[in-house]
């Protein structure tokens, strides 16, 4: 059953690879996305019992996160259709096929209960995303891809090494090298301490590179800046998520080995560091797509901070995965529209978009406010939960720094966003804007994402909260 979450998209990818029509092909995206979403919903509503030894399984953690990715993908897929219609000049065979493949691999990564399998899925996603990044085919796009690949590749290597170390830790601790998380957790204190710590550092850096935690975030602005908005949305909402769940799963093993305190400290430090770096970059950046990348770095920092705050914090972080993913999606999509219409992404050239693309601009501004924790949108609630968890667990100083970083990030974001939305558009941009029409196809999806974020904030269903707490129970088993 849960295997279909992986199989269906991969089959769809294969289908897309052989599909003849360049115009009809994009429709595969929403089709597969819909099926995937329905399956996910079904599994979410009645979760299957996962065999402890299973390498793949729709376990509580997957249940707590995967639906968000599926939802995000569905909306982005709907956007993709009209986007690819706008970009009909480019062949989209590879694009569609790999987008679907990414979905499949993401589902695999979220469900992986085996260290090796998790690694394979994550890195497969990384590689599958490469052609999506240089869809635009400009030299800048290739430069971005090259950096994404080498920095990401280093991450790949390190996380592989980390996995080896964890494996050796179990081997050295007398285990017979079974790398399912269940087995590793069961071995617990039996794992050899030095190897476990080495493994933790390597895996944190490796998967942190994928998440885009500072200082391993350097690929992010280039990649998000040059990739199409839809790809950015899925990278920021899906790929980073899989890396985060990977870290959570590993963190559970480390915790079982009795090194949870150290793990939390490292998570806290790197999280705050990422937020600080992101805030400093946001204060100065002049490119609104790179701005989104830095904001994403900031939110990865928030996630890692939340993960460092124990059970309540992790629950809040899972909540934040949802809210941030969906809100960021809206931002990326509307930013894509604005980028198309303005013909540039730099503050220095883009002005007065509230006149050229009023709807996208409105969505962009609202999304910016939403992502900077303006109530009643989702991120406000999740971040407030993190704050409360931190204060309850006595991390006053960390929370103070957290709030400070949020404030500076807010300054940076508002500066850029209002910079491009207000004022009078340039004449060159006017001509360009004429060519871009704000059809329902490019407006409704981001709007929908905003509504979802709103809904998550105000009327977050109890089942979701229950799912998150179940995931927390899985990660922090209390005997």
């Amino acid at each position, binding site marked *: 059953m849960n295997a279909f979450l992986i199989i269906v998209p991969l089959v769809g990818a294969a289908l897309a690879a052989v599909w003849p029509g360049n115009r009809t092909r994009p429709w595969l995206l929403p089709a597969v996305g819909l099926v995937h979403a329905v399956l996910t919903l079904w599994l979410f509503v009645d979760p299957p019992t996962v065999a402890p030894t299973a390498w793949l399984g729709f376990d509580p953690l997957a249940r707590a996160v995967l639906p968000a990715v599926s939802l995000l993908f569905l909306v982005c897929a709907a956007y993709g259709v009209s986007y690819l219609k706008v970009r009909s000049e480019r062949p989209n065979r590879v694009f569609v096929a790999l987008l679907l493949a990414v979905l499949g691999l993401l589902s695999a990564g979220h469900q992986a209960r085996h260290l090796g399998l998790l690694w394979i899925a994550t890195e497969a996603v990384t590689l599958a995303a490469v052609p999506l990044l240089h869809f635009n085919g400009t030299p800048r796009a290739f430069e971005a891809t090259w950096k994404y690949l080498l920095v990401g590749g*280093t991450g790949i290597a390190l996380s592989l090494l980390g996995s080896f170390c964890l494996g050796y830790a179990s081997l050295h601790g007398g285990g017979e090298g079974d790398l399912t998380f269940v087995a590793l957790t069961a071995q617990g204190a039996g794992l050899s301490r030095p190897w476990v710590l080495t493994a933790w*550092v*390597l895996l944190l850096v490796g998967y942190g590179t994928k998440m885009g935690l500072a200082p391993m975030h350097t690929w992010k602005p280039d990649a998000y800046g040059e990739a199409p908005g839809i790809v950015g949305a899925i990278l920021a909402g899906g790929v980073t998520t899989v890396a985060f769940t990977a870290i959570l799963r590993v963190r559970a093993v480390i915790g079982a080995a009795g090194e949870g305190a150290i793990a939390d400290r490292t998570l806290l430090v790197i999280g705050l560091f990422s937020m600080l770096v992101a805030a400093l970059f946001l*204060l100065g950046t002049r490119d609104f797509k790179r701005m989104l990348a830095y904001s994403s770095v900031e939110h990865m920092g928030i996630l890692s901070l939340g993960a460092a705050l124990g059970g309540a914090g992790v629950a809040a972080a899972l909540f934040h995965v949802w809210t941030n993913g969906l809100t960021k999606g809206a931002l990326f999509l509307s930013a894509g529209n604005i980028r198309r219409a303005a013909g540039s992404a730099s503050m220095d050239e883009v002005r007065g978009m509230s006149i050229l693309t009023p709807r996208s601009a409105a969505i962009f501004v609202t999304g910016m406010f939403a992502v900077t924790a303006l109530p009643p949108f989702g991120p406000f609630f999740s971040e407030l939960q993190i704050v409360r968890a931190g204060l*309850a667990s006595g991390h006053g100083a960390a929370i103070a720094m957290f709030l400070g970083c949020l*404030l500076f990030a807010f300054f940076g974001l508002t500066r850029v966003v209002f910079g491009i939305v207000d004022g009078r558009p340039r004449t060159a941009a006017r001509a360009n804007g004429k060519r871009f029409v704000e059809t329902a196809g490019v407006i409704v999806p981001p709007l929908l994402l905003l509504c979802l974020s709103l809904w998550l904030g105000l009327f977050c269903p109890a089942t979701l909260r229950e799912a998150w707490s179940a995931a927390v129970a899985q990660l922090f088993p209390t005997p």
Partner: protein
Amino acid sequence: MPGPLLLFAFAALVTGIVVGVRMSRLWLALTVAGTTAGFGAALMVLLGAADWEWRSGFSLGDELVHLRLDGVSALFLALLCVVGGAGAVYAREYWPEKHYPASAPRGRVWWSALVLSMGLVLTVSNGLHFLIVWELFAICAFFLITLDRQRREVRAAGWLYLAASHAGTMALFAFFSLLAARTGSWDLPGPMRERADLSSLFWLVLAGFGVKAGVFPLHIWLPSAHANAPSHVSAIMSGVAIKMGIYGIVRFSGWLPVPAAAGWVVIGLGATSALLGIAFAFAQNDFKRLLAYCSVENIGIILVGLGAALLALTHGDAVWGRLALAGALLHVWSHGAFKALLFFGAGSVLHATGTREMSRLGGLWRTMPWTAGLFALGSLAVSGLPPLNGFVSEWLVYLGLFDAVTSKGPSAWAALPAAIMLAMAGAMAMASFAKASAMIFLGAPRTQAAAHAHECGMGMRAPMLMLAGVCVGIGLAPILFWPAIRRAAGSWCPGWGAEETPAPLVALGSVHVALAVLILAAAAWLWRKAHTNGLRRGMTWDCGYATPYARMQYVSASFAGIVSGWFRWILQPERKIRRPRGHFPEEALRLERVPETVLERIIGPVSAAIMRVSTTVRQLQHGRLQFYILYVVAGLIALGVLVLLGGAP
């Protein structure tokens, strides 16, 4: 039964938000009806109905909606409704569809949203929901301030406001989260004075709400925002919005225990705001900025009263605290009324002449007598002169301070300087508004624009008359407003509700009435006498100077010269002087500008330093892949070291 009224108000405002874009007339009706209903509800609670409380089963953000309207919130709600309604009427003529086709509809929607969100701020009693409506209120205010988005300085002012208010909100994030973490729930059940562990939270309250209230060092956003906003927005911002900050401080200093130092700090902040705020006001040349800074002063007066009350509370529940608190609460109303009136007046001047520079105006009384008269009335009120409302509330605060001094307790040492500073502030307020009204309305027009001004229509005059009525009413019959004040004081501190009407208030009221009558009589008498004796019009004698010339009149800078000299240390005026040369000087020049000292001399450099840091850090993203990989390795090593250190214990 305030419930139904509030429900109606809510419904009316929400409908207003919906229909506001298209149907302006219907919108106006709805807004007025809604505010009236809200006013009614507030009045019922203030005049003795039981607190209105509503715990619903309806949950938002996983928290049950819980509304409450008690004395304190009703006091502020009444003010909100009065100004909200008046402003809506005023806006119709001041910001008409035909001049602002784009922004007028937006303005209507945001106005309803602003009034609604402020009303909710006053009624919700759940920490989470408070934060929500608080932020919504901030955003609505932001979009109203930047209604005229095409102007750069408007956008800058709006951004500054947004940034400052967000900084305040961060403090409130921390405050409410700490409260929730310590009490275990977001719900605000009401007084929690016994929870001693909560007292330290007061500082967060002061910081968070102080920014919104515009307490002196935190007022940086206030002048430019009030000056650049459309005048009806300035009116509600200055009359009501900054009172929301006061509301927060009053509310939570009433519900939570306060640290022993709280009273001292608040009274100190208040006195400082009063004195420095008015010093800045006096030095301004832009009359809307002058009004804005005067708001800082009045917030200061309110805080002095509140601080005295806190002192009384922490020093054995002294009686004088009640007078001070009553004064503070009454001043919330007084300031709301006369400041809105003044901003409306300022708006009609701006509307008629298109300039905010007092040195470009003058002689407007001839063309706009109504505005002149009402502005003069407002000036008397804001200067705290009898027989108007400003004096009544300041008088109560003074009484509290005097009693504190005569009690010779430790708190006298706070009350004594506060009283003296308040006196100086009062004198300077008088000076500032003598200057403002004289520069704008008296003498000869200094420019063509001033010469060809025109009186505002009934749509703008009516709200002004209404507010003027409030000013006079509080001034002449303070006794009528006492029950409301007592009720609010009662819900601030349970023991203080029973306070009987202070006899002096009756005497003061009657004296005021007598005074008003005599003033009118004497003026009329002298007027008639002058006419019966024969009245000739002639050129200003001015010691026989033959060819007077409008540019020769005293301008605002020269009028304020002496006092701004005394405050040069904080005002730091920037002067540009080119003296006349030779026997027949061609030209001479004297420019004077009073900078936003705190903003330009403190915040500016700090933020510049931060930006330098940011620029240096951003150098690291220089595009060289080799270094990016080096960063990864560095991160690896750093985390390794961290883990090694962590492994040690």
